[in-house]
């Protein structure tokens, strides 16, 4: 056991760090893009604050196309774009760009779903007090759906965590990459197992954290 850690401890620690950096960074960037997109999508929906069928349809297409491209294909297909943004298609930066691109439409969709759950009566009440649409978005839609948005963020995080396993393809490392290289390619089952256990533990921790946070802020 001690020998195992001497040999692979540093490797697994670096893998954990790489995975977390990739996941957290891409999660943040995915929200920077996906949150406004999701709000725009919800606001323009039929029955939304400012219904606009044309805008809503186009946004729907973009979001669905984005969500339907398999990540491993996207990773390779957008290499020119990745190079343009971060100057390289390799390593952690080279993985964060495709992870962000893959997650942003997913974020937009779950944000839209969270906002759509807000009781229409509350929106009407806010209108009756003279709220503008912008005020309703911030003070009613986002505020009232915050627990749901947090749950969505936890799901996004876990999804990105899973996607990041494929980032080894572009040399970004991470736990998934370790599991594939050592376990699948070199038949070192023990290293693979350790990497997988780390993945399981980390996912549990972050999911529980998200659930706890959502529960503690939910006043319903």
């Amino acid at each position, binding site marked *: 056991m001690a020998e195992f850690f001497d040999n692979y401890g540093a490797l697994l620690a670096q893998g954990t760090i790489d995975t977390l950096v990739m996941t957290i960074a891409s999660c943040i960037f995915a929200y920077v893009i996906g949150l406004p997109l999701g709000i725009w999508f919800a606001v323009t929906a039929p029955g939304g604050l400012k219904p606009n069928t044309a805008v809503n349809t186009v946004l729907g297409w973009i979001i669905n196309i984005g969500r339907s491209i398999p990540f491993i294909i996207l990773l390779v297909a957008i290499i020119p774009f990745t190079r343009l943004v971060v100057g390289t298609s390799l390593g952690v930066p080279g993985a964060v760009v495709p992870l962000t691109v893959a997650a942003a439409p997913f974020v937009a969709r779950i944000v839209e779903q969270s906002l759509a759950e807000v009781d229409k*009566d*509350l929106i009407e009440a806010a209108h009756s007090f003279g709220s503008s649409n912008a005020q309703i978005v911030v003070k009613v839609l986002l505020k009232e759906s915050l627990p749901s948005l947090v749950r969505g963020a936890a799901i996004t995080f876990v999804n990105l965590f899973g996607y990041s396993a494929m980032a080894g393809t572009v040399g970004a490392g991470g736990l998934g990459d370790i599991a594939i290289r050592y376990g699948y390619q070199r038949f070192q089952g023990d290293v693979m197992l350790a990497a997988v256990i780390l993945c399981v533990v980390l996912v549990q921790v972050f999911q529980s954290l998200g659930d706890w946070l959502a529960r503690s802020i939910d006043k319903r």
Partner: protein
Amino acid sequence: MIELKDVGKVYNASDGDHRALDHINLTIADGDMFGIIGESGAGKSTLVRHLNLLERPTEGRVIIDGVDITDFQGKELRELRASIGMIFQNFSLFQQRTVLQNVMFPLEIRREPKAQNAERAHELLRLVNLDDKAKRYPSELSGGQKQRVASARALANNPRYMLCDEATSALDSRTTMQVLDLLADINANLGVTMVLITHSLAVARRVCNRIAVIDSGHIVEEGTTDEVFTNPQSEVTRELLGWGSDSASDRADGGDSEGGER
């Protein structure tokens, strides 16, 4: 004074147009506690939403204090709405805000200074006797308490008018009386003109000084509460009162009174 002049509302639906309101003429005087009674689907909730333009009429004019507001837009519209309080059947309290933050909401919307807002909100909560619940969330309150908080919130901007859309329909009879007494109090002591939408004759009779009866988008009767209750002019009112020639029990099946004589 609120005046509705020949107000009509037609909804365009894929299966043809639906007329919700037809040639509504009403005058609500300052200080009135004005009841609008009707069966569900009669158009009363649609009607009250025309007074703060949550719904816009397709015909006619809405005039408040002599100003034609029918075409108000943008800032003008928002300021008009802010000057008219409103409470709702299901209270419509913000679930993720405390009682105090709910009452502060209309002030926050108008970007009033925050410290002053809290002071004003506490003052309103004292008025509805719930200042001890200021830090609680709506989910921790009873129905009657929720409607009292909603009433405090509706008063935040010192409105001259308050619209009550089935404000007591979700409450039991004892709580209904408490909330009605509070509304009557607001009307009498703060001089807020009230428009009360209800399907309940008992509610209207207890607090209103004037009553209009609406049926299938038409005002079929209007008068003082005494007149309407003692000498109803329309068939619909007589039926609502249980005086109808073809007995009140028939009204329970949805109240489709198209073709009924008026």
